[in-house]
């Protein structure tokens, strides 16, 4: 420290009580308690509720896989889509799942850059959710191509025809966006896990656990020379993931916006899709975190304040989505294009009116309840509203895709999409895949970033009395 600075002038006066923030870790828990509480979940006996959740999830997952097997062996005709509705539940499910992933990256990267310390208790599970949601998302575009064994033509690999992929197509941009997103999210998640895997290694009671955690901890010793490079790398990965997450859903929206279809060809799509993605993702984060904190007894780490802050993000992004819905209608009228105006009138009052109004009530009305602190802090209500958000955002993608396609310019090209049982069971089954992966994650890995949560406690601050600071030192 600079000796010339008067030490007395550096003393910071404690803020008045009403301005004090609620601590991120309640009950002044010690550093040791944090590792014990979080690592203990993956170390203890498998609880009954875990098996009760795991078995149905695995069954659903197997159902999803058998439906995919049936689709691949028979053909896309087992689905309900047909001319003029060439995209239906497949792409709806794809956009739904990829959107959910965005909250994980927002929490891990954007909130990190914004120095939002509360992110530390939810980022690990939210990032895991991202990875599993992207895994579910990746299935649908892959299987909707029909001849799945030729899906590798999407990648710039030499093939017998000597033809390369067509890089002017937004569908190909999407291949790169989603695969980059999956890869970078995995890297970011893994980098965050390394110090916690070392904690798991050092706590391991059996040789097998020690070996497995030790292998993936890469010999981490908590060295400050390592931390120095590690923190810079983490910051850079957050800096790379931020433009990445914004670009991924923008590029997903280009799948629609770059086409000429009325209802799709709008410039508002990229920001509107990104806001919707974050909205839906926070809905899913809350749907997962509220049971998780109770079942794993993590109420002191994932506090009501965390839930309240997430509810506020839902309120903000939900309002942006509501604004986008209004603006779409305004531009459809103001733009003076009769086809565009027809597409939007048809959306709200045509044969799919019910889907439109489900979307609107779930996405625009339900988040408005979060204006009230009483509702934001009531975990049962937050849980119920988060489920409405999930439902609404699935319907949003359905509305955008199916209502825009189902009436082509000529009435002879009109149709009405009905899903088959294969459509339905594949989608329902994808939740089984998602939940199976998430439950395995909860069972074997630390669900909360142990070292990061320790880092935001007062005990971790060398300038705080709880961190051992003595008056006048530093």
């Amino acid at each position: 420290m600079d000796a010339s600075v008067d030490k007395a002038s550096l003393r910071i006066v404690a803020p008045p009580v009403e301005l004090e923030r609620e601590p991120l870790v309640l009950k002044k828990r010690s550093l040791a308690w944090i590792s014990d509480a979080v690592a203990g979940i993956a170390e203890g006996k498998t609880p009954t509720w875990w098996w009760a959740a795991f078995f149905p999830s695995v069954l659903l997952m197997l159902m999803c896989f058998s439906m995919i097997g049936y689709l691949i062996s028979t053909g896309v005709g087992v689905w309900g889509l047909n001319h003029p509705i060439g995209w239906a539940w497949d792409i709806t499910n794809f956009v739904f799942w990829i959107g959910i992933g965005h909250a994980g990256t927002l929490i891990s990267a954007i909130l990190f850059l914004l120095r939002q310390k509360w992110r530390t208790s939810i980022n690990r599970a939210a990032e895991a959710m991202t990875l599993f949601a992207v895994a579910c998302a990746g299935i649908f575009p892959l299987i909707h191509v029909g001849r799945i064994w030729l899906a590798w033509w999407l990648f710039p690999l030499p093939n017998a025809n000597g033809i390369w992929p067509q890089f002017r197509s937004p569908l190909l941009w999407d291949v790169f966006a989603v695969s980059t997103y999956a890869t970078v999210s995995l890297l970011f998640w893994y980098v965050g896990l390394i110090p916690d895997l070392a904690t798991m290694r050092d706590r391991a009671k059996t040789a097998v656990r020690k070996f497995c955690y030790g292998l993936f901890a890469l010999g981490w010793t908590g060295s400050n020379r390592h931390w120095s490079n590690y923190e810079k790398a983490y910051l850079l990965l957050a800096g790379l993931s931020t433009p990445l997450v914004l670009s991924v859903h923008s590029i997903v929206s280009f799948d629609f916006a770059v086409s000429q279809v009325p209802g799709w060809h709008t410039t508002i799509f990229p920001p509107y899709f990104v806001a919707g993605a974050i909205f839906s993702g926070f809905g899913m984060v809350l749907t997962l975190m509220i049971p998780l904190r109770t079942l794993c007894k993590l109420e002191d780490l994932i506090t009501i304040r965390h839930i309240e802050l997430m509810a506020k993000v839902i309120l903000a992004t939900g309002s942006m989505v509501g604004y986008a819905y209004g603006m779409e209608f305004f531009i459809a009228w103001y733009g003076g294009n009769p086809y565009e105006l027809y597409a939007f009138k048809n959306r709200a009052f045509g044969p799919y009116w019910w889907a439109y109004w489900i979307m609107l009530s779930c996405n625009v009305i339900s988040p408005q309840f979060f204006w009230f602190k009483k509702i934001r802090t009531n975990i049962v209500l937050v849980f119920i509203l988060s489920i409405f958000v999930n439902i609404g955002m699935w319907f949003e993608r359905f509305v955008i895709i199916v209502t825009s396609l189902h009436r082509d310019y000529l009435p002879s090209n009109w149709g009405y999409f009905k899903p088959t049982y294969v459509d339905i069971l594949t989608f329902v089954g994808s939740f089984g895949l998602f939940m199976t992966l998430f439950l395995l994650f909860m069972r074997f890995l630390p669900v909360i970033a142990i070292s990061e949560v320790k880092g935001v406690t007062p005990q971790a601050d060398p300038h705080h009395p709880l961190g051992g600071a003595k008056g006048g030192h530093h």
Partner: protein
Amino acid sequence: MSSNVSSSRPYAILAEFDTPADTMHAAEIVRDAGFKKWDVHTPFPVHGMDQAMGLKGSIVGYFTFAGGLTGVTLGMTMIWWMNQFDYAIVVGGKPLFSPLSAFPVSYELTILLGAFGTLFGMFSLNRLPRLHHPLLKHPRFRAATHDKFYVVIECADIKYSTAETKALLEKAGGKHIEFVEE
């Protein structure tokens, strides 16, 4: 293990601390004593420890930049080569190559290779993975990922002397000062 001392010489001397402030204070003392081969081990990154140890800023960013630059160059060159040079196909009368339509893919590749550059840059600067380390065999050191803090001075350091270094760590407030076997 530490009981097997017949021929092995110590790898390092280790001192335990309870709080980040004590550790940082000790780090400043060790830094000012002029040691080079030493380190501080903490369960989480301690803010200000880099200065206390006299470390310079991390250079991981250069790896990120190199990765990102490779990504954007690769993307643009690949798309130009594939769509304009090697097998040109006219689609919708659009130009065979335009930096605008090539941008999204090149942008994603910038981020992808930038992220790999960051990761492998961090690993190589940290000399990781390293699956065997003398410290990991020391029974006390396990708490370094739990709730204890350690200052470790390697015996290979020029300034190292068994008695004086031990006294220095004691003076710095270290507890359980022990030797770590190679």
